[in-house]
């Protein structure tokens, strides 16, 4: 599809189209929304059906569900501390949603909803609003001291305070750009090398041998993309935990 007209069309995979036929078209229900629902449904199914046996020796799905729970739980308690347990449901939801979004995007014909900055920025803004609300509700006015470190000379305040505020405001931006850029870059690379395979393969007998190289690259890239898909979900979750730690403890 991408090789039609002998051009590399790496970006059309991110275009939104409406899903579910005329009903979806009427309410602008895109395939991005569809895959968000699928991800949510899969997570619910994993946690529900995985944990239903509640066996002492877990089966496959129970082991998977417990591993996910254990992984996020240790991450949260390590980063935030014992009082971080109250944020466990939030971080777990966020991590699983992004992980399933990234992993679903690796399936053929699937859409990666985390490759849209609207989605990642919305997730990052949820985190940003949460850390700000938590910091203000726990510390009140002392939260403002966050923007001016203790012991700094007072005449540096006009310099330090804007810098600290911009640094604080850049958190959701960096969170969202990191996830979005990683997913877009990975999928563009996959598409470009896949197009090479098709273009080379259409060039006759010599081209078939030439197509082996980009195909090999693509195989390696798919493996790498699975790593990135997990790693970016992990990074998002761990940065959320670090920000929550800052909000709870104010340094």
């Amino acid at each position: 599809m991408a090789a039609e007209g002998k051009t590399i069309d790496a970006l059309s995979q991110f275009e939104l189209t409406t899903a579910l036929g005329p009903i979806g078209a009427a309410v602008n229900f895109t395939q991005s929304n569809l895959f968000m629902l699928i991800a949510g449904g899969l997570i619910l199914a994993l946690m529900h059906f995985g944990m239903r046996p509640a066996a002492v020796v877990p089966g496959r799905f129970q082991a998977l569900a417990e591993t996910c729970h254990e992984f996020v739980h240790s991450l949260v308690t390590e980063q935030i501390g014992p009082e971080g347990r109250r944020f466990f449901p939030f971080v777990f939801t966020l991590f699983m949603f992004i992980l399933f979004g990234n992993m679903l995007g690796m399936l053929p014909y699937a859409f990666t909803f985390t490759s849209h900055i609207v989605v990642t920025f919305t997730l990052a803004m949820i985190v940003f609003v949460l850390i700000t609300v938590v910091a203000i509700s726990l510390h009140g006015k002392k939260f403002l001291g966050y923007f001016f470190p203790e012991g700094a000379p007072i005449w540096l305040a006009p310099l330090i305070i804007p810098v600290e505020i911009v640094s604080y405001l850049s958190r959701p931006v960096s969170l969202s750009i990191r996830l979005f850029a990683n997913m877009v870059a990975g999928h563009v690379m996959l598409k470009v090398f896949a197009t090479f395979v098709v273009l080379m393969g259409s060039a006759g007998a010599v081209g078939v041998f030439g197509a082996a190289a980009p195909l090999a690259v693509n195989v390696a890239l798919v493996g790498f993309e699975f790593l990135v898909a997990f790693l970016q979900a992990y990074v998002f979750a761990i940065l959320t935990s670090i920000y929550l730690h800052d909000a709870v403890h104010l340094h």
Partner: protein
Amino acid sequence: MDTRNGFDERLRKARQRKGLDREKLSQGRLPGSGAIGLRAGVEVVSALVVGVGIGWLLDRWLGTFPWFFLVFFLIGGAAGVLNVYRLFTPRKRPGDPAMPDAVAGTKNGSRTGGGRRQDD
């Protein structure tokens, strides 16, 4: 399952008290220089984006085109450098003995941490 989790938790606490797994405390950093480089780049770019955005909006509001833009461009750059600096300085851990007031200092620490031993 409950007793097992409780045992693991107590074992981990005991190990931490004795300082047996000290190197685990420095985790939470990504392996690989490429990942670190990308993170540093993203931090600088996002701080610049925020700085330039604030400056441009202030200029549009007050009609003083280049000035707030220039000032906040520099502030954004400084914030980016600050972000990268924070990225490379070791963070204080909640379980770190060097920061004893971290757990005891907040009022919710006793509420969630003290009452329940096992949460799952």
